[in-house]
């Protein structure tokens, strides 16, 4: 067999719905799951003679996102019409940006498995409007709902810098976290707030010659898992195809595939043999946007610490594992709440355990975030301090946390009222140990025999002491005294 090596090459086209209240060019409310055609007006259903007017917040959200992606912001940007003959956008064109997008040349850092980060280039980000929805359940007809038509849509195009399915998934999750941190999108993939379209091909080296397979674009991906699997599937399929036919990329023979989630495979939709007749031309109904330094500085001031920076800081400064830091920074408010609690004097690792093991569970039941629970970061820091000081056991802290949420009392009050203070008093514990030893001669004999039964018997005695103290004795102290007594 001849020598063959290959590299997966992937770039992403990403569409993000901006979380404004209204559409891009008219005042219709953005609404998901509303009755069809209730959020439409003459502008977004393409009536003649109407004029679009830009939504300022949508533009600023876009600039904010581009800044977070390290893009250059153009001082001058304009709008173009992209010819588009489908009934889900009844103007027969989409308002988009062609030759002068509002931002270009950025990058995003993604974490790799080995702890390093990789920089993925961003070619451009531009603003456009989304189309409506086609529903194909009417036999020879389609039903059209234009509620979504005109939704502000931020399109981000990356360089083909990703070289594995895992990297593609990581970039997608990072971008979701970034737009959520910035508050510019709800970024729910299931709801279509965020759509990822990977462009995939292989660079194959065979007998010293480089071959490139033709590019596949995959659509219809509505989960991170689907993104990762579709890239892996396409890479395998293209390799098989190359080995079988030897076919390589020709100019413009990009193919579009749809992801079939049920059968976990890609399905060919069409071959782009002819150049698309988008026939862009300048949008005469919209005036250009000029960005000045003052406005840009004002938008810049709304940037926050980004999720990966925060995750890296938590891992470095607070000595958390990458995993823990990742869990805490999945949501901005949770991460900031944790950060405040640490700064209020709680031990980072202890707070991390309390938040991830108990806090997230309680928040989940209440249907909110940890930061939205009716407790302060200071109160949680106090709880962590009490555990650290050995005043309460880690297991008691979960119940106290829940009480804090339900009663809004401070942890010290709850501990006092419920008599949960952990006993460290060696004298008192020693007395209990003595009682247990006296009452269980058989277990003591087993424990001191040194045989197989020894470990189990010590555990039993330990449990008896804890029970006697109603869980309030410090296990550390009990264990020390017990082992001393048993010699």
């Amino acid at each position: 067999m001849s020598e063959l090596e290959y590299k997966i090459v992937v770039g992403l086209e990403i569409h993000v719905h901006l979380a404004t209240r209204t559409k891009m060019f008219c005042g219709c409310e953005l609404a998901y799951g509303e009755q069809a055609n209730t959020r439409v007006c003459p502008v977004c259903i393409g009536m003649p003679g109407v004029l679009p007017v830009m939504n300022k917040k949508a533009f600023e959200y876009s600039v904010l996102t581009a800044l977070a992606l390290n893009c250059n912001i153009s001082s001058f940007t304009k709008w173009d019409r992209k010819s588009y003959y489908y009934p889900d956008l009844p103007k027969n064109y989409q308002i988009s940006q062609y030759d002068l997008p509002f931002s270009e040349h950025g990058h995003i850092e993604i974490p790799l498995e080995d702890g390093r980060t990789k920089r993925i280039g961003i070619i451009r980000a531009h603003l456009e409007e989304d189309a409506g929805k086609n529903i194909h359940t009417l036999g020879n007809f389609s039903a059209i709902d234009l509620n979504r038509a005109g939704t502000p849509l931020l399109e981000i195009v990356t360089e083909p810098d990703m070289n594995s399915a895992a990297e593609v998934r990581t970039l997608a999750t990072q971008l979701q976290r970034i737009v959520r941190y910035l508050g510019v999108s709800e970024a729910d993939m299931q709801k279509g707030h965020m759509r990822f379209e990977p462009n995939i091909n292989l660079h194959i080296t065979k007998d010293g010659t480089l071959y490139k397979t033709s590019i596949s674009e995959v659509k219809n991906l509505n989960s991170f898992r689907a993104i990762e699997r579709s890239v892996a599937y396409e890479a395998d399929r293209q390799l098989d195809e190359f080995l079988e036919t030897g076919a390589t990329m020709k100019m413009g023979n990009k193919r579009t595939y749809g992801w079939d989630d049920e059968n976990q495979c890609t399905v060919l939709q069409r071959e782009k043999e002819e150049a698309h007749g988008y026939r862009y031309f300048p949008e005469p109904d919209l005036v250009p946007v000029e960005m000045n330094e003052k406005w840009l500085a004002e938008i810049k001031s709304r940037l926050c610490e980004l999720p990966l920076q925060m995750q890296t800081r938590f891992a470095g400064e607070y000595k958390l594992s990458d995993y823990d830091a990742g869990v805490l920074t999945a949501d901005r408010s949770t991460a900031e709440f944790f950060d405040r609690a640490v700064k209020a004097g709680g031990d980072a690792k202890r707070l991390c355990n309390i938040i991830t093991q108990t806090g997230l569970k309680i928040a989940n039941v209440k249907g909110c975030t940890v930061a939205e629970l009716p407790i302060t970061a200071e109160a949680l820091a106090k709880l962590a301090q009490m555990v650290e000081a050995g005043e309460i056991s880690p297991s008691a802290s979960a119940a106290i946390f829940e009480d804090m949420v339900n009663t809004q009392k401070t942890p010290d009050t709850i501990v006092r009222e419920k008599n949960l203070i952990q006993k460290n008093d060696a004298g008192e514990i020693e007395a209990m140990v003595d009682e247990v030893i006296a009452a269980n001669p058989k277990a003591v004999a087993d424990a001191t025999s040194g045989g197989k039964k020894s470990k189990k018997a010590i555990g039993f005695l330990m449990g008896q002491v804890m029970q006697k103290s109603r869980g309030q004795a410090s296990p550390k102290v009990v264990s020390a005294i017990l082992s001393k007594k048993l010699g």
Partner: protein
Amino acid sequence: MAKKIDESQVRQVAKLSRLDLTDDEVARFSIELSAIVEYIEKLNELDVDSVEPLAHCLPIGNVFRADEIRPSLDTEAALSNAPQRHDEYFKVPKILDDNSGA
């Protein structure tokens, strides 16, 4: 002289525009569109080397509106011009080459 817009270009544009043209119409539009393009080409005689490209004919920019909800149309009014409807949806011939999602 070859026509500026030949019949194959007319057919291509018609296809992209979802227009079903007869052969006679294709021939006629080829002549008419060619005449229009030839007329417009007169502009090429102008020397514009020292003229800045213009993005918009009005000397203004940054016309925005606040992100405030305004009343939408009543669904009945929105659908009133539609040739066909199905419940509260617009009803159109089935889309074969579905490129939705822009």
